[in-house]
């Protein structure tokens, strides 16, 4: 029990000084350092980095808004607060991350992890389109997909053993995490989501993308879409975030909730690849 407490304390300390993903930080710096930053570029470069997106939205909300009017979209934040404010927020956040990047998991290569996150974000957005959801709602699906695996970042080198076990036993990742580390990335994701005061539906995507049956009904549509996107991205090996053998028993529930056939999901392959390539070119990964 004490062992578990010590592990949790270590993770909490890490969550407190959570780093961003270094792959995109350089690009953020480059775009934000220009005096003639284009709104489209700024929006894109921030939103392609899950950690930075969360941090920027958190800062915007704590700095400018009372509890009642929270902003959950970068596009709106840029329209409301102007380019310079959001640019400076992103710039300072990115710099703090560069300096403060004390530690990150060696087990999960950050580039692969980034590719997985982008893949799930892009797929969730395309699935939302396939489901006929309004254009304005789709950005939230993208953000939720990007952020869904935040809970894996605080794991240290002990995660190497988890990943090795997954390959050996062919079990779903959260099962092995719980067995070896006594906590899974959904629970850690919850700590981060609460610290960053992410909104309820994105928090649920982070905390329940492997347990959508536990989510409150009004968030199920988004969480199931993200879970389906995650399943798809894991199955097609887009990037790598450790879950080589996702829980197939959930698939019928996810498809039913989304009102989609598996063939329709697979049919998005070309579009998903194209979107990911676009993102990669933009970030020069």
């Amino acid at each position: 029990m004490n062992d578990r407490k010590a592990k949790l304390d270590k993770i909490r300390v890490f969550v407190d000084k959570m780093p961003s993903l270094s792959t995109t930080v350089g690009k953020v710096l480059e775009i934000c350092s220009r005096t003639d930053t284009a709104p489209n570029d700024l929006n894109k470069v921030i939103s392609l980095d899950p950690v930075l997106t969360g941090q920027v939205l958190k800062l915007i909300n704590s700095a400018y808004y009372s509890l009642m009017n929270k902003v959950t979209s970068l596009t709106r934040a840029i329209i409301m607060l102007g380019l310079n404010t959001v640019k400076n927020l992103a710039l300072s956040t990115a710099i703090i991350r560069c300096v403060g990047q004390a530690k990150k998991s060696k087990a999960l290569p950050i580039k692969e992890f980034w590719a997985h996150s982008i893949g799930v974000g892009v797929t969730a957005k395309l699935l939302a389109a396939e489901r006929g959801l309004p254009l304005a709602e789709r950005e939230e699906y993208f953000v939720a997909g990007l952020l869904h695996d935040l809970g894996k970042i605080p794991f240290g080198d002990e995660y190497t053993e988890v990943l090795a076990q997954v390959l050996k036993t062919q079990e779903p990742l959260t099962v092995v995490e719980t067995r070896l580390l006594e906590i899974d990335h959904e629970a850690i994701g919850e700590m981060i989501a609460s610290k960053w005061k992410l909104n309820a539906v994105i928090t649920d995507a982070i905390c329940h993308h492997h347990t959508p049956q536990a989510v409150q009904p009004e968030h199920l549509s988004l969480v199931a879409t993200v879970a389906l996107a995650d399943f798809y991205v894991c199955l097609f090996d887009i990037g790598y975030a450790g879950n080589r053998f996702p829980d197939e028993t959930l698939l019928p529930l996810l498809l039913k909730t989304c009102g989609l056939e598996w063939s329709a999901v697979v049919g998005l392959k070309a579009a998903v690849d194209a979107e990911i390539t676009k993102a990669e070119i933009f970030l020069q990964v």
Partner: protein
Amino acid sequence: MIKVKFWGVRGSIPCPGPHTMKYGGNTACIELRFPEVNRHIIIDAGSGIRDLANFMLANDLPKGPISTEIYLSHTHWDHIMGFPFFVPVYIPGTSIKVFGPVTYEDEPLEAVVGGQMKYRYFPVNMGELAGAIEYRRLKEEPLLDLGDGITLSTTIINHPITALGYRFSFRGAVFCTAYDTEPFRNLFVTDPEHPSYDELMAVEGEEAAREQNQVLQEFFTGADLLVHDAQYTRAEYEKGKIGWGHSPIEDAIASARRAGVKQLALFHHDPERSDAQLDAMTQVYCAEDGGDPMRIFFAREGQEIIL
């Protein structure tokens, strides 16, 4: 009752001279008095606050120490430049609360406003002020209770740095400000042929701009007096002033009218605007129309209005 008095109505920089005698050349400063509860509020510390200080020294100080609250629309220089000349700050016993927004940066409101009181800019350092001055940063606030039955709501308006619109209510009277601001607009690429076009951004940007304009209009709905940015005509605005954070007069009038505002004070006049021009513009924009329930006027220094 709210007694409103304009002590400065200009934008950008003070512009004294023979061509600005009628409307005045001082930058933004508005005084609100609440006689029934003996409260005093100042909005913005532009150069107009110097004359207000003289008035307070002659009329208020003999009755006892001065106690006031200053609400800053934002911290651009024309809205804070009068602060070092607000004489009550040097008088022991004075109590001043300064409220205002701060754009994202590390420095608190105190350093942003007081930063102009350094020896390199001014002979008195902020630390030497004798009055008790408190600073409080404001965010977008749905409703603040200021005591004595006065309430305040704030909303973020559209300016290159964070600026707030204020809505003060007292015993059924409503006074609103919406300056410095220009209509929210979609900042994202809307041309599908453009290489960085993104449909989501284009659509959501359009929607967000429309909704924020609606939010601002609702903010001043039903105001007895709205003081709105009106620095440019629409023609001037479209000719190189988009993105400067100031409104075309035509837009201010249209949205005030939609919001059922009772009196609209056009405010933050361009420093280049002469009395003769403002008189001529009064004929164009403020003509009395029997069917129009809204009174429109270009705000004038020294003008008083009772709500």
